């Protein structure tokens, strides 16, 4: 019988890094991944993308969206459904905001989605994640920003949240490893702001991705603009974004061709995804140090970890009960109980919680790793506010990576003691996300004056409209709220595991940040001569909305998720207030490590993947240390 040093649940970026680091040190690793594992499926995924009329982040990936609209594929039948944004959002809180009701008056939430919403929830969870080998890095944008030093000290500096238990200098060291792994393309001098510093001899692995023509024009238009942030004067400078995509080709690497489809999928693999790291880990040579003459890393796809078993005497995790399936539903299921000295769960901020809560036992009555009662709590995202307009000059969007620059200078300031900070992702896909362009633009022109809906007049109209489109995406920091949480639902998946239920709201801190985002948009647009086309969709109950106070006037705005699900098993120094320590090690079970953005005590304004990777390197050292001690 094979033995393993470590079992890792989840084959996303955190699990992949952990596997690679352990295997490099000669440890035997078994990775369990709930979803499928055919890494040669990129073209199949692209076909799904091309033929999808709404280009959702999860659209290209199995289980495919099309099957989700068939009642035979509802989540209680599927073995490893993942969260989908093909949801029905209508429920009572929306009526209070003037949002229309569905014609048939249903108040169903999320009929086709795996995660349920608590009826008291003010918002649906707005972000999605993947369950397949490579995880959510299949559909990430590639943004590889570091957190700011102040992001780790929000309790001390601004009076909210909880400080991170890691000195920023230590995180910086692991950021360098993460950037090397992802092969981040960036220029150090563009990233040296708001307290981020680099060692003098440090260089990013690849030169920066060139800023889009659109970015450059907007930067010029914004010249000389100052913004008042509660008495602080901030200048909205446009910085190039560090990106997990290849600015130049390397050995076995393709350079980014600007396909503009980074979310949900890079067609040529120029954007990093965790399958790269997994392939590396799986192909580590069986050398003379490998006494068992077998690969160091074994990957079992379509295998769902259902329960962690706790030894009542030692409180250690002794085994993982898992089920392997052969089809998405109604197939063969094989049960297995797997053991290893160390267990790592890296299944994202929802699925990790689900596994912990589904592992209740006499020894762990609130669930594994949950003596503090904090598992599932403090669910956070970056709440997205979109604004869009028509530039006075052509910007030529729909080219390049979906975003090449951001306004980063608004990520920090004393104002954070009053309202959330944000960064602004500047889009290169026109009004694609915000308003469905170009299809909606075409349809609008075709339905207009027939004399202008064909030939050269059609070309002139469409070209004028499409080339001047610009879009801002404000990623608004959300504070940790204990009531925002993931719990066990009274509903099951096709394998008989309880599904997750979410209770979620934006919170006052973020709502005030959104109000500031609205005012910031207005100031920038006014300065730049951009015609504001931002229009909330309140008529369609499929668009979640919130109400914010903008200078005394109530304003309804649509909000979206950034895909950054965080905070549900936070790290800290106090076992009564946190789930894991700074090494991502459970306070309750010394041989259990929980990876991923669920450990973030606060979220700052950086997209989380680089930090997830950095923390995975830190945790891998702790696991190796523990394995060495076990000998």
């Amino acid at each position, binding site marked *: 019988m094979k033995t393993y040093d470590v079992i890792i649940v989840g084959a996303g970026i955190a699990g992949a890094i952990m596997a690679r680091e352990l295997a490099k040190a000669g440890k035997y690793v078994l990775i369990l991944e709930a979803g499928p594992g055919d890494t040669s499926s990129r073209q199949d995924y*692209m*076909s799904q*993308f*091309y*033929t*999808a*009329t709404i*280009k959702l982040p999860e659209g290209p990936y199995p289980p495919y969206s099309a099957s989700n609209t068939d009642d035979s594929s509802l989540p209680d039948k599927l073995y490893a459904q993942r969260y989908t944004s093909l949801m029905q959002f209508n429920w009572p809180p929306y009526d209070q905001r003037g949002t229309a009701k569905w014609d048939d008056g249903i108040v169903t939430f999320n009929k086709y989605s795996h995660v349920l919403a608590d009826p008291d929830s003010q918002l649906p969870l707005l972000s999605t994640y993947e369950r397949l080998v490579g995880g959510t890095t299949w559909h990430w944008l590639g943004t590889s920003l570091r957190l700011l030093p102040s992001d780790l000290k929000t309790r001390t500096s601004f009076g909210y949240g909880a400080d991170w238990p890691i000195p920023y200098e230590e995180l910086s060291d692991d950021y360098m490893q993460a950037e090397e792994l992802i092969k981040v393309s960036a220029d150090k001098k563009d990233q040296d702001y708001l307290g981020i510093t680099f060692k003098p001899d440090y260089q990013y692995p690849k030169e920066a*991705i*060139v*800023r*889009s*023509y659109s970015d*450059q024009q907007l930067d010029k238009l914004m010249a000389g603009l100052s913004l008042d942030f509660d008495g602080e004067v901030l200048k909205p400078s446009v910085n190039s974004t560090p990106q997990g995509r290849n*600015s*130049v*080709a390397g050995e076995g690497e393709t*350079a*980014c*061709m*600007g*396909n*503009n*489809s980074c979310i949900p*999928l890079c*067609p040529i693999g120029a954007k990093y995804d965790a399958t790269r790291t997994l392939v590396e880990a799986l192909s580590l040579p069986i050398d003379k140090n490998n006494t068992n003459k077998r690969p160091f890393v074994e990957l079992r796809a379509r295998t769902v970890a259902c329960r962690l078993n706790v030894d009542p005497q030692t409180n250690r995790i002794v085994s993982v009960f898992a089920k392997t399936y052969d089809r998405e539903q109604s197939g063969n299921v094989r049960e297995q109980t797997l053991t290893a000295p160390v267990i790592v769960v890296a299944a994202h901020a929802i699925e990790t919680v689900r596994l912990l809560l589904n592992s209740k036992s006499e020894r762990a009555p609130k669930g594994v790793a949950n003596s503090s009662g904090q598992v599932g709590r403090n669910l956070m995202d970056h709440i997205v506010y979109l604004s869009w307009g028509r530039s006075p000059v052509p910007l*030529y*969007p*729909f*080219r*390049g*990576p979906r975003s*090449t620059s951001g306004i980063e200078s608004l990520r920090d300031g004393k104002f954070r003691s009053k309202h959330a900070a944000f960064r602004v992702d500047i889009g*290169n*896909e*026109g009004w*694609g996300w915000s308003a*469905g362009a*170009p*299809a*909606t*633009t*075409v*349809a609008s022109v*075709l*339905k207009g004056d*027939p*004399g202008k*809906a*064909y*030939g*050269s*007049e*059609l*070309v002139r109209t*469409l*070209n004028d409209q*499409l*080339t001047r489109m610009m879009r801002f995406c404000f990623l608004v920091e959300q504070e940790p709220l204990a009531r925002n949480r993931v719990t066990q639902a009274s509903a099951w998946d096709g394998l008989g595991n309880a599904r997750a239920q979410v209770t979620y709201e934006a919170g006052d801190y973020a709502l005030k940040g959104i109000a500031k985002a609205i005012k910031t948009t207005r100031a920038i647009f006014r300065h730049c001569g951009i015609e504001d086309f931002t229009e909330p969709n309140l008529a369609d109950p499929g668009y979640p909305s919130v109400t914010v106070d903008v200078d005394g006037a109530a304003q309804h705005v649509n909000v979206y998720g950034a895909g950054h699900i965080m905070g549900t098993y936070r790290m800290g120094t106090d076992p009564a207030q946190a789930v894991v320590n700074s090494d991502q090690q459970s306070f309750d079970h010394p041989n259990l490590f929980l990876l991923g953005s669920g450990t973030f005590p606060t979220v700052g304004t950086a997209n989380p993947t680089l930090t997830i990777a950095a923390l995975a390197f830190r945790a891998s050292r702790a696991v190796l240390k523990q394995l060495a001690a076990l000998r």
Partner: protein
Amino acid sequence: MQTRRDTFLLLVATLSGVSLPNVTIADDVADYLGNFVSLADKDFGPGQAEELLKLFNSLVSQGMPAGDAVHGLLAGRFDRKPPPGYPQQPYGDITRALSLFVLTGGWSAQCDPEQMIIPSSDAYTQSLVWLIAQAHAQGNSNAGPQSWGDLPDALSTFIGG
């Protein structure tokens, strides 16, 4: 002698404002004609797509400028009663649906983006609106690395003279 495909390509080029050679290249890959006939038959009634092509060919053959013929079609000047059970109007609605289809790759008899279906990957990647935007379909870039930092080529390079 105009073949059926020649008629279709001229109709699409006149509708979209994209040159005949560029429309031909797109149709070679995406078979917009075959898809159009199949989709239109389903939504507008059997034979309605062919009727449209015949009508357009007849108008042009009689000396009407192609642009005037297309304008008349879109304006409903040649509309007639739809077949029983088919609510959409030949020929205004069908011409508008065809235009949406070749421009975006998405078919909707109502010209409604929320009702569209995209019948094939090629229908999306070859769709003509991207040329008019001086860009490329998402996930189908032939531009070189870092080219997005510069002005795109002139519009005429994309849509043809």
